[in-house]
């Protein structure tokens, strides 16, 4: 900290220059962004400039078709949670809207998650909303809803029952009766989706009972489910869709769920076949000639006070259009400038931040990964069906873009800058 020791002089505290900027840039503490007006809402669908932005498309579908199911895919840090929050905000324009936004990791361990968990988490959150809503209206919460919540919690968290131990049967009991054993005879028809598991069906019953006061009032209920993209493996997500989401069909409760990026590239086209609407967030256009979006995000957070236009452009370019990387680069640049006791962020600080980000992506890459990255840089070839290629995409070392109706893949520009040349 620098201070002027002259009597009466105003002390200069450099922390006050950078601290507010850093707080607005925190890429992992995004809860207050919407409330603080820091989010720059996209003006259109990132894949089609003629279509409304994703959050508007989702909200319109939920409002017009109750019970619709929608999926959102995008790479790590692409702004999926922000889109969910924006969708929630749009949905709130109607007074009868009841929106439940959950990140499943807040409620359940995503390592051991089992089918029924989405329904159970949503049901418990919905119960709080129903209780609040009825309290505001001066209406007593129906006993059936309270009971459903108790049962739902037991189903979700388990319970201990005390049961009488049956006596050990004697080997040669005179009254012994022959018992029957079930033998399944398979039918000829293969179900499009597997039958609901017993526990999922039980949870659904309780969920519907809890939602009934709202559904009876024709309320517009929307579940916005975040976090399942972190399962990464498409088959795990698919299991949930075929149980929890399938169970919700016909309940007039709409669902918007974040799905793993790899499902977007899955040959089975499960997402497109299962969901009523699927939206993909590719990396944003990083070239300021094509879009001002990234620059606006930084400027909204006060970048102009600390960074010259050329450096803002450089940060946008090397973020590759990954929103979280954009914030990380700006933040690191600011921290380098603060460390150097400078009042503005210069090219040197931005370059150091780019190198640091590139190194993050470089760590752990083997020769196979590097070969694929070089091939992509040299001739644009990227075999998306290859498991190493998929790994690079999930880990954001390779970014997917969509422009002019065409999908393309590019090595993350910060990684490209530090990627060693072949010997």
């Amino acid at each position, binding site marked *: 900290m620098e201070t002027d020791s002259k009597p009466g002089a105003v002390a200069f505290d450099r922390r006050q220059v950078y601290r507010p900027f850093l707080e607005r840039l925190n890429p992992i503490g995004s809860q207050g962004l919407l409330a603080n007006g820091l989010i720059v809402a996209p003006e259109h669908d990132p894949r089609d400039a003629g279509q409304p932005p994703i959050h508007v498309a989702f909200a319109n579908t939920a409002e017009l078709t109750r019970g619709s199911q929608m999926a959102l895919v995008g790479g790590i840090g692409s702004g999926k949670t922000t889109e969910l929050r924006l969708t929630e905000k749009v949905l709130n324009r109607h007074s009868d809207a009841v929106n439940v936004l959950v990140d499943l990791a807040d409620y359940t361990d995503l390592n051991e998650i089992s089918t029924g968990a989405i329904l159970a988490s949503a049901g418990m959150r919905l119960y709080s909303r129903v209780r609040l809503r009825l309290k505001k209206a001066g209406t007593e919460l129906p006993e059936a809803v309270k009971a459903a919540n108790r049962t739902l919690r037991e189903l979700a968290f388990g319970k201990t029952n005390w049961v009488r131990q049956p006596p050990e049967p004697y080997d040669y009991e005179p009254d012994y009766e022959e018992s029957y054993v079930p033998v399944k005879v398979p039918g000829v028809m293969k179900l499009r989706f597997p039958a609901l598991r017993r526990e999922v069906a039980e949870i659904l019953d309780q969920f519907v009972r809890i939602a009934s006061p709202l559904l009876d009032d024709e309320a517009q209920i929307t579940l916005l489910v975040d976090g399942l993209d*972190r399962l990464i493996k498409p088959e795990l997500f698919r299991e949930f869709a075929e149980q929890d989401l399938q169970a919700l069909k016909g309940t007039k409760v709409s669902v918007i769920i974040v799905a793993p990026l790899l499902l977007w590239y899955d040959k089975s086209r499960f997402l497109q076949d299962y969901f009523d609407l699927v939206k993909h967030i590719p990396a944003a256009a990083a070239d300021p000639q094509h879009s001002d979006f990234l620059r606006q995000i930084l400027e909204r957070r006060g970048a102009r006070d600390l960074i010259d236009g050329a450096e803002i452009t450089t940060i946008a370019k090397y973020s590759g259009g990954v929103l979280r990387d954009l914030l990380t680069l700006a933040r690191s640049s600011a921290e380098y400038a603060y460390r150097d006791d400078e009042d503005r962020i210069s090219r040197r600080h931005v370059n150091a931040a780019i190198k640091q980000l590139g190194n993050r992506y470089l760590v752990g890459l083997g020769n196979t990964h590097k070969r694929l990255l070089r091939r992509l840089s040299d001739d644009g070839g990227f075999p998306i069906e290859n498991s190493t290629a998929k790994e690079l995409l999930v880990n954001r070392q390779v970014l997917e873009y969509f422009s002019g109706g065409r999908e393309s893949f590019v090595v993350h520009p910060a990684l490209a800058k530090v990627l060693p040349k072949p010997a």
Partner: protein
Amino acid sequence: MTEFSPTTAFRLVRRLAAIGQDKASLYLLICDTAAIQAVQADIAAEVEVQLGVRLQAFAAEEVRPDKLEDVFTRDGGSPVTLIALHRWIAELVRALDRNIVLLTGTGAVLLLANHKAAEQTLRAAPNLRSRLTDILTISPDEAFRGVPA
């Protein structure tokens, strides 16, 4: 190992103090295996002196992957949590990656790892990597000489 900016416990904690100790931040700190204990002690001392709170520290082996909420739910607990990874524990790192929102609620989370564990963490945990505030190499205070502040 790829090169990352060097720091010391003093500078790291000064950084936490500058942004506010209750603000969410997530750091991967890399050091030699032999220095992990000393670095952890340095950080604990700096946290106490500069922030006036006690560091909540765990060895990775103590953290149950299915009970992360026991470590990261801060109901009146310390705002600074450190997990020391003396070796690569795949199950724990995957759990941290999938349940990353538990780490990014409030306060600072410091993952202190040796080079190998850090490299494997970055490779196996893309959600965690994406949310890292920074990756730094850290050395015990007495061994840290001549690196510009």
